[in-house]
């Protein structure tokens, strides 16, 4: 695969200020940004907890009605399709948890990028996935909602 293909297939890019290991906010970001980042880290953890427990009510509150959700296989789902699929899924999700969460804030929009690990059973076979994810959050009607989510496997 060419390096271009590596970029196109499976690699994300983000502003330079995101890339420092362990860094949450870049220099020049404000207290407001810091507070937003803390809130979104909490929301992300709650989102992972809700996914694990298939808590559709919690996910319904966190996801914008027009959210676009892309699985690690590239399948695109609307919010309603995603929530319905969570209930009907033949996958037993044993554990899904973030390994890293980084936030960059652009006033009323924020990008969250990180890595998560997922373990479960699918079609009677145990699986482990380690994925990079990007969630986009927007501040709407006085609260943060997730307007898009995408993930790709880090295991090649």
């Amino acid at each position, binding site marked *: 695969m*060419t390096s271009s293909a590596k970029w196109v*297939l499976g690699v994300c890019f983000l502003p330079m200020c995101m*890339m420092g290991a362990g860094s949450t906010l870049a220099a020049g970001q404000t207290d407001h940004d810091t507070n937003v980042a803390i809130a979104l880290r909490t929301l992300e953890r709650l989102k992972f907890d809700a996914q694990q427990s298939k808590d559709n009510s919690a996910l319904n509150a966190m996801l914008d009605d027009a959210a676009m959700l892309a699985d*690690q*296989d590239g399948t695109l789902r609307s919010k309603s399709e995603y929530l319905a699929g969570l209930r009907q899924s033949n996958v037993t999700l044993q554990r899904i948890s973030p390994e890293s969460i980084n936030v960059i804030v652009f006033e009323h929009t924020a*990008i969250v990028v990180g890595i998560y690990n997922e373990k479960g059973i699918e079609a009677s076979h145990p699986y482990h996935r380690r994925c990079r994810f990007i969630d986009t959050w927007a501040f709407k009607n006085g609260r943060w909602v997730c*307007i898009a989510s995408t993930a790709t496997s880090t295991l090649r």
Partner: protein
Amino acid sequence: MTKSEVLADTRAVSPVEIVVDSSVAHSHGNVVMVTGILHLKGVKSGKPYLQYGRYMDTWLRKQNHWVCVSSMTTPMKKGPVDD
């Protein structure tokens, strides 16, 4: 990859053909989410290849310009239509 890494990478590679399919955009005020499927055609070691990927980009309106603030592409086994 950072922005500078992407730009350097783009300059360094051999030409590939990228076709965008099934593009969808949702606007949320000053932020627009764009997703679609890429068909990536190229040649490696003398052999042609065709790969598919789901991309999702976040575009933000800053100082009267639309700028891409994040992009991720997920490999897909197959595109929506067999080529």
